[in-house]
């Protein structure tokens, strides 16, 4: 029982990263019809930025947790204005290719400056211990990640459902042709929403820095798993992306714990789940049916 709870908790923690990244992808896709391949690169930049800030300027974790998302959000907005913006009227495949190219560039920029080896990042001292839950105890930092990620998801949900900009984003996601016809200026929100999605990726990166190996390639492999996650959840559905993120984290952790004789399982289980979902509900668990093709 204790073991099960521990595995479940660890699954939720890694699910938190999937959820934050999938959430960013989903709001960006909803608003711009852009599947941002560079999302993983921005996650990597968040972690790397935190590492560089600490090692070269002595900026602590808590400051990095604010600085990096803000900075990357601004960088994302600049990129949206500079390049992505020009392709949003075309087939989404073009922006997928564009952001793929950006990923290669960002990765190699970091690689050529810092090499490919992983850099350690110390857990902030306030969170270095563990939290006692009676039957078992968890590392305090992981408890913090989970709580923080849930908080962020709830805050985003609140913004999406209770504020005007949230309404615009949801309307644009669900009825992209109809929303501007009501006289809503969707274009005004495109750049900020893109920046916001990037900021979420950067935030996930900073959170990952003390827990995972910080290296230039950390985002690339992750983003492909997140793609599978959003296919499972249904990319058009913001809630679905978050739910699938936590769900996949759980499934992976359980697979790793109870099928440990087959190390391949924990790496591939997400793709197996994706295959099953494609068979059963091609539009994703929470997605709406595509027009038949």
């Amino acid at each position, binding site marked *: 029982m204790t073991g099960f709870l521990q595995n479940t908790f660890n699954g939720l923690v890694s699910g938190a990263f999937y959820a934050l990244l999938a959430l960013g992808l989903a709001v960006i896709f909803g608003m711009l019809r852009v599947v941002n391949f560079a999302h993983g690169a921005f996650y990597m930049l968040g972690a790397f930025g935190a590492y560089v800030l600490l090692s070269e300027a002595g900026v602590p974790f808590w400051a990095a947790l604010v600085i990096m998302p803000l900075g990357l959000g601004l960088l994302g907005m600049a990129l949206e204005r500079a390049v992505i913006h020009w392709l949003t009227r075309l087939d989404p*495949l073009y922006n997928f290719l564009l952001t793929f190219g950006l990923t290669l560039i960002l*990765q190699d920029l970091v690689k050529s400056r810092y090499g490919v080896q992983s850099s350690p990042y110390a857990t902030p001292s306030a969170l270095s211990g563990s939290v006692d839950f009676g039957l078992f105890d968890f590392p305090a930092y992981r408890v913090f990640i989970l709580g923080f990620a849930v908080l962020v998801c709830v805050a985003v949900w609140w913004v999406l459902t209770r504020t005007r900009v949230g309404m615009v984003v949801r309307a644009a996601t669900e009825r992209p042709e109809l929303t501007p016809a009501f006289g809503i200026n969707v274009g005004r929100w495109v750049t900020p929403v893109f920046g916001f999605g990037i900021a979420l990726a950067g935030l996930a990166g900073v959170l990952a820095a003390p827990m995972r190996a910080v290296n230039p390639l950390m985002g690339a492999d992750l983003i492909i798993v997140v793609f599978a996650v959003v296919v499972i959840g249904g990319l058009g559905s913001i809630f679905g992306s978050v739910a699938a993120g936590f769900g996949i984290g759980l499934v992976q952790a359980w697979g790793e714990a109870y099928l440990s004789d087959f190390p391949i399982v924990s790496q591939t289980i997400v793709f197996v789940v994706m295959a099953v979902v494609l068979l059963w509900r091609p539009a994703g668990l929470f997605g709406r049916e595509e027009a038949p093709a």
Partner: protein
Amino acid sequence: MTSTVDTPEKAGRPAHRSGLVAAARAPRWIRYALLAVGLAAALWLPNGLYPAVAVDILCWALFAVAVDLLLGFTGLMSFGHAAFWGASAYVTGLVAIHAGLPFPVAVLAGALAAALLAVPIGYLAVKRTGIYFAMVTLAFAQMVYYVANEWRSVTQGENGLQGVPRALFGLDLTDDYYFYYAILPIVLLGLAAAWRIVHSPFGRVLVGIRDNPARARALGYPVHRYKLTAFVLSGFIAGLGGGLFAVGHRFVSLDVLHWTTSGKAVIVVVLGGIGTLWGAVLGAALVVRLEDWLSFSGFEAIGLVTGGIFVLVVLLFRRGIWGSAVVLARRWLARRHR
């Protein structure tokens, strides 16, 4: 949101318009002249370049044509074709090492294995279209990568398969120069097969599906089955390329399955011109030559260059080289006829 995905003609893919239509319209003498020039260039290639680079160009030409068969003529962007290229490379390597068969047989085995792998992946992937298709194929290719990475008893994991032989009835093919001419017929057969597919009634249906899937379905064509068939054929041709690549390098590493390999294949096609088989070949030659030149001149951050090419091509040059050339040529012909 689905309308942009399902009707590419609305979404502005200029290059699509050029390939097939232009090929059908170009005067016969131009087509024969092009074929002659292409064959002459293929025969000359290892005399003008390092033969090893020329071999790579042939392999990548097959790979790119396979991707273009889907992207240009079926309207499906596979971002996971490294799965077929790489799976064939591994199977070819294993067959050549353990069975000691002549390399064309090993390559054929590899390509068949790739086609076999393309059946389940394609079956699942064609359930989605557009950007989702790209994400699904990318994800499945990553799964194949993880499996190859973990299955060390067979794939040797990170060490890769070493010492893939170039056996062919006792001929000495260790020199890349002669090896090039040994594989050229296989590559030309693969390219001819792609050309034949595109210009067959089957290929016309694929283009119809690309341009208007709903209409194709209304006309009674089983759209999913056509897409799956195209996917498997494409997997086979990519597998031919991957198998030859394995024999050419006498070595198979995990790189052949990496997502960057899939992405590179797509950009080769876009650079050459989507929906133009010639363009795919030309793009392969350019990208392989460029990467060889970069690594030869000691430039390490190749990703900066390939990424930069990606960004520039997608932003400024979406018709690609061949697509642009076709547009110019058509304009010139139209002026002459007036």
